[in-house]
């Protein structure tokens, strides 16, 4: 019996997945054919998504009233951003609590569209509040207010966040 078992052992070592090979071989062609079709449907759905976004934007956020806020984290910042609150003209526009994945994405250079809404043309007051933790574990929060003008074109504002070490409030807002 030892010879038989040893043969089984060696076969298992040389080709660890041999037991499932027949099933895979049988399904290999099917898998590849299906894979091609799945790629096609992904492409179709992506193009529907793109058209739908466009339609949504036109319907929900017409260009003359549209405002979008994008959030990024300054380079080389190691503070942990927990939450962000945005008020426009004293009204809460959005409040976002960050997951580790989102924070990681921001620290790697990603930019988050945190708010899209509608406002009338003219001057407006923007108030940003951020809450988080410093590298040493201390809590921190910072707020700052800004004035911006909304024209007839869609407005995009970029909010760059930095820890308290960066001076001032650590919140910068700029036009895009």
């Amino acid at each position, binding site marked *: 019996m030892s010879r038989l078992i040893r043969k089984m052992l060696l076969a298992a070592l040389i080709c660890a997945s041999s037991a*499932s090979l027949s099933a*895979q071989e049988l399904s290999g062609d*099917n898998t590849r054919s299906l*894979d091609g079709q799945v790629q096609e449907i992904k492409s179709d759905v992506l193009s529907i998504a793109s058209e739908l976004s466009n*339609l949504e934007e036109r319907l929900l956020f017409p260009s003359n009233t549209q405002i979008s806020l994008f959030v990024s984290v300054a380079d080389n910042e190691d503070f942990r951003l927990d939450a962000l609150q945005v008020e426009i003209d004293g009204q809460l526009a959005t409040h976002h609590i960050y997951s580790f*994945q989102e924070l990681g994405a921001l620290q790697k250079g990603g930019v988050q569209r945190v708010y899209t809404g509608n406002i009338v043309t003219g001057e407006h007051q923007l108030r940003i509040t951020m809450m988080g933790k410093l590298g040493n574990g201390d809590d921190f929060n910072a707020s700052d207010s800004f004035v911006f003008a909304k024209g007839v074109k869609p407005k995009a504002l970029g909010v760059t966040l930095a820890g308290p070490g960066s001076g001032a409030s650590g919140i910068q807002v700029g036009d895009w």
Partner: protein
Amino acid sequence: MRRTSLIATGLLLTAYLVATPVSGEELKDLHFGEALFHAHQGQFFEALERLDTEVRQHDGVDEPERDTLYFHINDAEFSLGDFELRYRMHHRAGRAIKAVLEGAVDELVRNDAAYRLARIHFQKNQMGDAMQALQRIEGNIPAAIKDDIEFLRANIHLADGRPAAAAEVLQGLQDSQAFTGYAAYNLGIAYLQDGQRQAAIEQLDRAGQVSSDDPSVLAIRDKSNLVLGTILLEEGNYAGAIPYLNRVRLDGPFSNQALLSTGWASMSTDNIERAVVPWKILAARETTDRATQEAMLALPYAYGKLDVYGRAAISYGHALDSFGAEVDKLNVSIESIREGKFLEALIREEIRKDKDWVIRLRSLPETPETYYLMELLASHDFQTGLQNYLDLADLRRKLQTWQANFDSFDEMADIRRDHYEPLLPDIDTEFRELDSRMRLRIEQHKMLVRRRDDLLTTPRPEFLATREEQQLLRRLELLEAQLRGGQSLLATTAKQRLKRLRGLLTWTLETEYHERLTEFDLNLRNLDEAMAVLEQEYDEYVRSRQAASHSYVGYQKPIKRMRAQVREAAGKIELLMTRQGHLLEVTAIEELVARRSHLENYGDKARFALADSYDRATQAQARVDE
């Protein structure tokens, strides 16, 4: 950048691409940054949707250098291919990267693109095309991918059955930090495939001693030792195999196989007591593992050889019970898959949020089938099918949400129509009236501006006469005309009086001309400001009026068309999911049936060996009693 899995295991090769975020550059395009935000979270559908739209818009602009994406276009096109590849859209990924290759780009960028294209072909098992793409690399190569290119080249040679060529390339990578362990192991495999047995043994020996604290390098080190031990076992060099098998860590992914082989190597050198030790450890491990199941038979076999028949019988009995329980578990699993529970478990979102979700499937009480499917789950074809199934499930969820959104959009447009349509006709009538009055005023304003400009070059005092003065002038002209032919004394006196009056008026107009012109200019400037405000309000009104119409007009057709598109796509997805799901279920059931048959075979052997051990134990007892 950390490379973890571009490893050759014989002909089993995997490849992956690394996202190309903006490296050290200031981000100038928000939408590119937004795509990166999604990509860094593994949301490649969302990343692609945004970046694809952005790149297409950039391609369509007349002056691309004025578009913010212009500063990142190479990165963006690379990322597009990268995201497509990560979203398992190899066909499109290849096209995107080929576009970069064929564009007028820097040598470094072109070489990077050629490397990426080669990886795509490699992943699609198109080795000829992969090598052809690598051959396009020439001149300056980005330092970060120099070793990656050579490692890929070696893997292509290996996969294409050219181990000697692979070995030559891999020799140059032995000092590579990025491929510590992997290059050494693959070189050993290349020698082995090339028939250079001694060189393979020496190389695998070296690969089995690399020092690192990286878990993936430690795993490949274990694998080198296991393969080397196995080679020696196959050759009958049992004693030689043991030191290499002993090098494999007891808590690593290859420890079960190493323990099993160590036992057999000891057994084959008639060192039976030493075989018992690893098998005893192994027999107590996870019962679903193939090596563990084999050890459950091998251990009592060793006890038998040691003439400890009683213990052998107990162990065979234990193995028999265990195999029986596993067969029952497999039966339940097969039934569970047939009932569709396997696919239901796979698409549970809360499980997939965990990066080790495949492993966690094992802990779900309602998915016993996954106990036996770990190997299958790790195989390439099954993984492809599984990922496709999961992607399809995600797409189905999106389409369902969109379908519901269309109803809201329709309702929104209807509400706006109901609000605006009764108001707009009256507003339009009022506006038309206002519009004609405004146009008249605008024309009058233009005429006054022209007159002011004329007066600045050709003074005409009478143009600045007041209304009374103008009436007076007209009356004087009339009286002068009436008196033109009169010769009487009265007429002559009247003419002189008229002349004095005209002189007086002319004096006033001439002397006050500059003052009046200044005042006229000042008034006109004030009017300019008022006109600017008026025009601004007019434009605002026109925009608001257009916005009112645009808020509900022109949505019906696109919504209807998109509804149909979504419905059609949903139908296709349903069909594909059924086919893909069925394929997965059939493959999983085949695997489980094979494992069940294997266990039943083991069970038969255990039953026979159990009876034999009892007989021998009884005989031994009888001999003792005599």
